[in-house]
């Protein structure tokens, strides 16, 4: 069986070669060849996953030669191969018609196949060098896919931003691989992780702990690939590329950070400080991504910042010790974000026909003869809004996994679940509706169904991805902080959240004019966010300075 699995990463490369060689002869029919081979890859990936579950023989590893070039079949690689090949096939099928009027039709499918092969090789890599090869290739393929339309300077500019950000993410992983090889003397993951487990206290350069140094470098690599602040500027601007590429990138490529963090989970389990770093950077990214999303008036750019926020949540989950949940999150996000991107054109067309701006309530009352929207007493709604989501979350978790509450990471996740639930109810309260009680009840029911489904699937998925309960507990434990500090932080954040909601509520009720003395502050903040915190401007200024210095050096040294 395992020999057959080589076909999963190799077939897309074969498809790319065939597309390149036959595109002159077959013309646009070459796309069918590409789609057909990717369908085979999807079937193989599905078979691999079901075979893995049915055989129950544990992870397998196989190498082409004695040195490097190996695959590892474990829950992570099996499930991600299925997800990647599935999303890639959808993007292929979508592109058959979408790209038909674009120049370089065959080249596009060749690049799409090369990208698919590179991602599949990355998720299935069984040793450090195979992983590095795939890791590098992903950035290169993305560069050419984003720059598929070779002429507009803007396209090339943003493709270049992506390429450089990805190169910044490549190099820390190289250094991590070097440290691991120098310390443990092996390349293949099974032996490497065994040796790390046996001697986790090994030291490296500057007497640093190997696990801490490697985890830090892997985290840096993940930050660049998954658009974590401040290495995020490339992500929203990649919308200059073709829509299928945006879909593939936001649904698959940008998730590379979460995958690599999970692949190196046996290293992170010994590196609590780096997990805390992941949490902080993820949280910051989630906040900034979400705020910047709100200030965009371009749907694709808003989706780009939404992805940044989601990637922040994903990294934060890993930082809380919920590694499996990060994978679950990236799969769920990949599926819905891919759908949104592929549907973006339809939304834009619909918006051209109908702007979607709701009517004024007075207009509805007088002209449309609709009854005026009703409101419930705010104190009752506030109580329901704050308490019901918490109750649902606690009851469901207590039912599915009673021991879950003992982990700090679990509390963090519950906290964010609570925030999301309250936010949904709060938004619903703000909607103008004729029957607010009915709407509130429907939302609570939907929330309960989602939480039950998510929790049950989430815990089953976690047990599948990390079958060793002790290892799962060790990850949560490594991510923990001092109990008193933790409790104080949770209380502080909860108070801040509630104050924020109250502030938003009273602002709405009083309908204060913008220019109430604080208008200047709000305007400055809006300017700051609409300029995307000036991060890209700072990079551009720095880049220009460096190029100027290089030119001066060349002139001074007479170009030799």
């Amino acid at each position, binding site marked *: 069986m395992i020999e057959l699995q080589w076909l999963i990463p190799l077939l897309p490369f074969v498809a790319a070669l065939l597309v390149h060689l036959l595109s002159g002869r077959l013309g646009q029919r070459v796309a069918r060849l590409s789609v057909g081979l990717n369908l085979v890859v999807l079937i193989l990936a599905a078979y691999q996953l079901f075979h893995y579950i049915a055989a129950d023989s544990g992870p397998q590893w196989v190498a082409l030669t004695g040195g490097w070039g190996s695959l590892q079949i474990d829950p992570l690689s099996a499930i991600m191969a299925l997800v990647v090949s599935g999303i890639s096939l959808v993007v292929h099928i979508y592109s058959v018609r979408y790209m038909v009027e674009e120049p370089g039709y065959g080249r596009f499918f060749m690049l799409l196949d090369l990208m698919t092969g590179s991602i599949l090789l990355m998720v299935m890599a069984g040793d450090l060098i195979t992983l590095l090869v795939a890791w590098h*290739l992903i950035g290169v393929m993305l560069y050419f896919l984003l720059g598929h339309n*070779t002429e507009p300077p803007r396209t*090339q500019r943003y493709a270049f931003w992506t390429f450089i950000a990805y190169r910044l993410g490549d190099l820390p992983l190289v*250094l991590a691989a*070097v440290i691991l*090889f120098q310390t443990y003397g092996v390349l293949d993951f099974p032996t490497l992780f065994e040796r790390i487990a046996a001697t986790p206290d090994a030291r490296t350069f500057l007497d640093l702990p190997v696990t801490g140094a490697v985890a830090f470098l892997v985290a840096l690599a993940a930050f660049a690939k998954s658009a974590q602040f401040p290495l995020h500027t490339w992500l929203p601007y990649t919308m200059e590329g073709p829509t299928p590429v945006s879909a593939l990138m936001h649904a698959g490529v940008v998730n590379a950070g979460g995958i690599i963090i999970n692949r190196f989970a046996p290293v992170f389990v010994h590196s609590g400080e780096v997990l805390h770093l992941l949490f902080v950077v993820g949280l910051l990214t989630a906040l900034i991504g979400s705020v910047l999303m709100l200030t965009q008036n371009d749907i694709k750019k808003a989706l780009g910042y939404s992805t940044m926020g989601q990637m922040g949540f994903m990294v934060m989950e890993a930082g809380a010790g919920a590694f499996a949940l990060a994978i679950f999150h990236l799969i769920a996000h990949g599926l819905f974000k891919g759908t949104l991107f592929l549907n973006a054109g339809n939304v834009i067309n619909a918006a051209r026909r109908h702007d979607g701006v709701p009517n004024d309530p007075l207009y509805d009352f007088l002209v449309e003869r609709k009854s005026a929207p009703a409101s419930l007493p705010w104190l009752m709604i506030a109580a329901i809004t704050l308490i019901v989501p918490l109750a649902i979350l606690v009851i469901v978790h207590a039912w599915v996994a009673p021991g879950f509450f003992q982990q700090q990471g679990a509390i963090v996740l519950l906290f964010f679940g609570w925030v999301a639930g309250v936010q949904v109810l709060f938004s619903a309260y703000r909607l103008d509706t004729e029957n607010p009680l009915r709407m509130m009840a429907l939302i609570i029911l939907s929330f309960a169904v989602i939480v039950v489904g998510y929790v049950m699937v989430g815990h089953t998925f976690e047990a599948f991805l990390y079958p060793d309960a002790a290892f799962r507990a060790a990850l949560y434990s490594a991510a923990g902080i001092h109990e008193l500090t933790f409790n104080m932080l949770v209380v502080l954040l909860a108070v801040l959240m509630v104050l924020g909601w109250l502030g938003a509520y009273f602002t709405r009720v009083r309908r204060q004019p913008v220019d109430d003395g604080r208008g200047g502050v709000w305007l400055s903040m809006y300017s700051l966010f609409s300029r995307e915190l000036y991060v890209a401007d700072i990079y551009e200024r720095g880049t220009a300075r*460096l190029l100027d210095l*290089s*030119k001066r050096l060349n002139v001074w040294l007479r170009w030799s």
Partner: protein
Amino acid sequence: MSILVLLLAVFFLPLFPASVVFNRLAAASDHLAARVALFVIWPQIGVVLILWGDLAVGPGVIAAWAVLSAILYAFRMLTVREVGRWSAMLASSAWPLAWLYALQAPTAPSLVAFTLALTAAPVLILVVRAALASRLEAAYTGLHGGLARDLPRLSGLIVVTTLAAMALPLFPGFFALLAVLSGATLWVAIGILLTWLLWSWAGARLLEGTVFGPRSGPVAPDLSAFAAWWAALLIGLIVAAGLVWTGGAL
């Protein structure tokens, strides 16, 4: 005696400022065969001298000097527009890494192969330079951009050779860098990675100035299918040789 040999080697496996000699020589001739011969033979003379000399006289100084030379030339590549000079600077940035590899006491064939692996990309860029100059009268980036539209085969060759220059997988430069990194100290490793990053930046700028962007410049014939197949075969052989040599790099 040993120090004198090493000082002589500094000219052939060039370290700054001795590297000025190589760069002047490379710019002196317009003939492709002469340039290729210079690029292939010149560093191998340095390899012979290194093997003859004794690197134990000052490994720390040699390592620092080599790393700084590599970074300096990689940084300068960012704003070089003449493709021939770009190629010479790439070589001047890559060859110092052979000193770092030599400090790890490899076998003589390994050191020769390592240097050849780092020479492959600059030589391929020389071929590109000749192809550009024969069609567009000059091989300057940013002068005649947008070649992808009218000259797809030549553009393909430029893209592939630039990827080789960036030392990306599966070109020999990638495995050569992994080989030298596997025995490097922290600061040397950081220096090598910085050099690698600058190569990527410079390579992307080269592509932006030739292959991508709006088409400008005179109408020119593309590579013939025959020439493109030969180029693909040559590059395939270089990749295969690199894979055979580094079957288990690191």
